[in-house]
Structures are given as C-alpha cells and as structure tokens.
C-alpha cells in the first residue's frame, strides 16, 4: 500500500495537508485512491461486508481527525491508512469475540487462497509483487505470517492454533519475513516519492 501510484496528480501527502485544514474534498479523493485497498484489507480481516464498511469508515475518520499529526517520516500515506485500517479491523474482530473465527478463516484461506491471482481484479505492479512474494513463501511460513497479519494472533496463539512448538513458529515468522524483505526490496528502497 504502501506504494503510491506514479502520475501527475497531487501526491497523497498534499491531500493529507488539505485534510488537516478540514478540506472534505481531499478526503473524497483519498478515498478514491485508497478506499479499495482499505476495504479489501478490512474484509480480509473481518470477513463480513457490513463490518468491513464500518472499519473503513472508522479508519478514514481517524485519518481525517488526525491528519495534522501525520508524519511523512514514518512512511507513505497509504501505509499509514493500511496500518490504521488493520488496527480497526482487529479491534472489531476482538470486540465481537470473533477472533477465533477470523483465525479459522485465515487458516482456511490456505485452501481458499488468500491470494489466488486469478480471482483478483486489476491490481498494480506493487500489489502483484506482494501477492506473488507471499505466495512463493514455503506454505508453513506463509501461514504463520497470514495468521499474524490478517488474524491478529500472537506467536503463542499461532503455535496453539497450529499445534506446533512455539520455537518453530518463531523461526518461521522470522524466516518468512526475512524472505519477504528480500523479495519486496524493490518496493522498500526509496519507493515513496
């Protein structure tokens, strides 16, 4: 998400500067750019459309209220929005006691395909690389990373869920994330304008 689209339009940061002074049109534009990302991410976590909508509305509301405190030094606007969206989504799942279910779904996604390319609508180069890189991880590594990121589970909870030793889970998380760091390097080095 994290990556901004190249193009002649104003950078996301300019939009956030407008948000900070209460420009609603800027919020609409931000939604037009990243609403699909936020909704997709929310839905992947909460798994219910109505809940995903609530999460997205909450997340954009938080961006709107806190735009003045956005700090470009901490990453892209899209990354900020993604982080907020994920937090809101995991909050909602926990608040409703649906954590276990979300977790099961996340695990099940191994079969469903959390990221089957052929089911995806048009996506940018960056998204394809992320999906492909995750897909290319050894399945045990991919699973623990998905359970952590989309399921909001701790290492200990993942170990219990998968009936694996905690040490094994820890090793897989580290190895998986390190591999992603390598394969996603093109998106990590100065990708943000």
């Amino acid at each position, binding site marked *: 998400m994290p990556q901004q689209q190249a193009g002649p339009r104003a950078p996301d940061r300019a939009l956030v500067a407008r948000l900070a*002074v209460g420009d609603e049109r800027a919020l609409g534009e931000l939604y037009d750019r990243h609403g699909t990302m936020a909704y997709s991410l929310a839905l992947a976590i909460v798994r219910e459309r109505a809940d995903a909508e609530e999460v997205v*509305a909450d997340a954009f509301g938080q961006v709107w209220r806190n735009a003045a*405190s956005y700090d470009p030094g901490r990453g892209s606007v899209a990354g900020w929005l*993604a982080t907020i969206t994920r937090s809101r989504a995991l909050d909602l799942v926990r608040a409703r006691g649906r954590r276990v279910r979300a977790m099961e779904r996340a695990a099940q996604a191994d079969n469903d395909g959390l990221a089957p390319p052929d089911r995806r609508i048009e996506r940018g180069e960056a998204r394809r690389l992320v999906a492909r890189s995750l897909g290319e991880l050894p399945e045990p590594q991919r699973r623990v*990373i998905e359970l952590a990121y989309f399921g909001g589970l*701790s290492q200990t909870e993942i170990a219990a869920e998968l009936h694996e030793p905690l040490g094994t889970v820890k090793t897989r998380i580290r190895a998986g994330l390190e591999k992603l760091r390598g394969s996603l390097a093109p998106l990590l080095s100065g990708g943000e304008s």
Partner: protein
Amino acid sequence: MTDHEWSELAAPYALGALAPDERERFEAHLADCAACRAEVRALRDVAVLLADAAPAATPPPGLRDRVLREARQARPIRRARGPLVPWLAAAACIVIALGLGYGYVRERAASRQTSAALAAARDSIAARDSLVATLLSPDIGTAALAATGQAPAARLYWSPSRRRVVMAVFRLPPAPAGRTYQLWAIAQGKPVSLGVFNTAADGRVTAAMAVPPGLTFELSAVTEEPAGGSPQPTQQPFLVGKVTPAD
C-alpha cells in the same frame, strides 16, 4: 536476554505478533537499542506491504458517502492558528530524565480501572501507533538512565521535529479510580499540560503525547489529578525532570 535474543523479537513485533507483555518489554528495550530499532523499522516496512496481499474486493457504492458523512460529524484536530514557530532544532532530539522529585508516599489501590469503552480503546491504539512511530523515528535520541531504589521513575523522550514526547514510566502504581496522572511541561515557570496517562497493574506504561506547536520547556513534571486531568496542577508533582540535550 542477550542482544541476539532481543533481535529475534523484531520480526514478530513488526507483525504485531507479540503478546502484550512481550511487546511492552520489547518496546522498553527498543528505547535503549538502536540496532533493534533499525531492524524493526525495516521489518515494519515489509509488514505494512502485506496489506497488498489481501484479496481485492470492491467496496459497495455507498461507502464513499458514508465515509464523508461520518467525517462531517468530527472535525479534524486543527493545527494552531497563526504561523507555526519554526523548530530550530528540528532534527535534534532532546531527552529528559524524570527523576524522583518529591516524596511519593501515597498508598494506592492496586486495582487497575479497566474501561472497555470503545473510544478509549481507539485512543489507546492511536496513541500506540504514534508512540511506536516516535520511538522508531530516525532522529530519536536516547539516554540510559539508572533508576534508583524502588521509587517510581520515568524516562521521557522529546522529539521536537515530531512535536511529540514518549514517556516510559516504571514502578508507579495505577492511579486510584476517578484519578489520573498528568504530564506537565514547565515552560518559563508555567505548567502546560501534555496529557494524562495511567499505568498498568505492573506499574508501567509507555505513552506518546503531542507537544503544542511552539512550546519549548525546561522541566517536566507528573502530578496526580482527577480523571480527565486538570487545567493546572492541583498538587505538588511527585516526579520532576530537567531537560537535558541528547548526546
């Protein structure tokens, strides 16, 4: 824990996969370990990209209107009016030590007030986001400060470039029901509230707070106040620290 063992926590931390107690311990370690902070920064950038791995879904047509409608009900938190005072030392970071300034003799109920209010949870998470961002900012300076005895102590990091402070508090029992702790910046002898906080049952908390634009201060202090905080301190501070520049 050895340095190596700490560094192994960077990946699960970046993924949000540490249990709350592990996370708190690791964040306390981050305050003192530049190597782990760098590792977390790098791995967190990787983790953020995972949002792109969510299966693409099309938002319902009405969602855009809902976003705008709900936004209209809450105005953004505005920047202060008028020109912002430029931060001359924008890149510098200042570290303040809060030492024990006054006798801390209160006895407290150890029970922590747990509010399940959704708004509170949201604030807390928003605060955590910015806390981590501040701690992980490239220009943060840190200082290791020895705590003495069993008195409560705090370590405070002030990043002028981010206009934020991050405060780590140790050995301070949670404020009693209906009370809160409040952090003050003392600027030219006048206290200015930076925000309220409370500690967990283990006596610790790490909190991030915004510093008003243009505010510089020489001293920082903590008092106990009625819930919600006070416009001005109502008691003598029990923690006081002097601003000292980072190395």
